[in-house]
């Protein structure tokens, strides 16, 4: 028996359109998920910024060990918040994955759809999370130094802030993609009948 199967063309623009529609349709759900990401990233960014500024202001030692602790915790919080949001978001859509499988979606198609959605949310969440977080990190230091002092320091270390900003977005993207890829991959491996029967 030979099935002559051509490789189906599932172009990136197609994937983007489908993913975008899914985000739009689940607008409020997507907002909640994005808020989870924003919160995690903002917390992390705020603590990191605060730690950097303390460093630049060269405040007395002794604060450092405490700062490392906080940064470590903020990473864990970001990781937990983002993974939780994304795992939930995929888990409540296993039935939808079953429908995609019934109408001929390949496992890889389905995973791609979810990953692109996660990327969009990750970029969005990371961007706003970083802005809010860095802003807050600067804000909480206003009682330690005057605005003029801070401006000078921030301008001098602008490239470091930029790296921090990019790192926040990158972490958001990596965490959202990973926390989506694993459950989406697992769900797409189910037989369509199992996926359709799936109850949350």
């Amino acid at each position, binding site marked *: 028996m030979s099935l002559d*199967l051509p490789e189906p063309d*599932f172009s990136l623009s197609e994937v983007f359109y489908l993913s975008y529609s899914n985000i739009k*349709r689940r607008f409020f759900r997507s907002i909640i998920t994005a808020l989870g990401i924003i919160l995690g990233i903002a917390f992390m960014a705020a603590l990191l910024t605060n730690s950097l500024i303390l460093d630049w202001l060269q405040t007395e030692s002794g604060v450092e060990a405490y700062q490392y602790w906080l940064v470590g915790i903020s990473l864990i919080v970001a990781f937990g918040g983002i993974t939780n949001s994304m795992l939930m978001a995929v888990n409540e859509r296993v039935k939808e994955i079953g*429908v995609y499988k019934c109408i*001929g979606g390949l496992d890889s198609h389905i995973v791609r759809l979810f990953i692109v959605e996660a990327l969009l949310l990750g970029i969005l969440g990371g961007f706003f999370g970083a802005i809010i977080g860095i802003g807050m990190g600067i804000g909480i230091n206003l009682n330690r130094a005057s605005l003029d002092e801070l401006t000078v320091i921030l301008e001098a270390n602008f490239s470091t802030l930029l790296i921090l900003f990019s790192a926040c977005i990158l972490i958001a993207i990596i965490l959202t993609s990973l926390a989506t890829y694993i459950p989406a991959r697992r769900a797409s491996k189910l037989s369509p009948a199992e996926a359709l029967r799936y109850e949350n």
Partner: protein
Amino acid sequence: MSLEEFVVEIDDVHKEYTLGKVIIHALQGISFKIKREEYVSIMGPSGSGKSTIFNAIGGLDTVTSGEIYIDQVDIAELDAYELAWLRNRKIGYIFQTFNLLLAFSAQENIEIPMVFAGVPREERRKKSKHILNLVGLGDRARNKPGQLSGGQQQRVAIARALANDPAIILADEPTANLDLATGLEIIGLLKKLNEEQGTTIVSATHDLKMISISDRIIWIRDGRVDRIEDRADIQVDAMS
């Protein structure tokens, strides 16, 4: 494509699964054949194995043993990629709960199987419009499933099933979530497609309204074929 006589052949199919510590024998040696352009209803009480047969024929679930041929292809020998292709091109599914993609309009729902099949955009637009008209929803193309009634959603599902000109349409209780009149409309539409387009239709159902329009009825009881009736026989039964 060769016009083989049988589009579905299933031979001695068994399906077992475990529920806790109990082994459930859902199918215990089911065999039947379905001819091209036939309208067959699989009937039986709840829990008799209708849906399990639906999943087995549709390649939606694996079976424990036995052979299933769709269009001369043994689906047990297909890998995941080929199975997806089969579900995409050879089989159209209709479900009790419609199972439309809620994020997309009626027309987009019909286009997505074509996206997976790699049909170019222009052709997709044209064909989905045509199919929507065929099921009587030409004016509802832009509506999302949430804005459609149950009967209309099932029409969209039927249209989606037709998207890639499948060899067979499988329906699992297509009228169970619809009221009497809407159910009759859906049955009428399926029959029309069967007669006018020559679509082979296999429907698992316990809706007795299906009896009068089916070419054959396969009665299932406790995971076995109880009896197979031709329409001619049924009419004789009714008269006697």
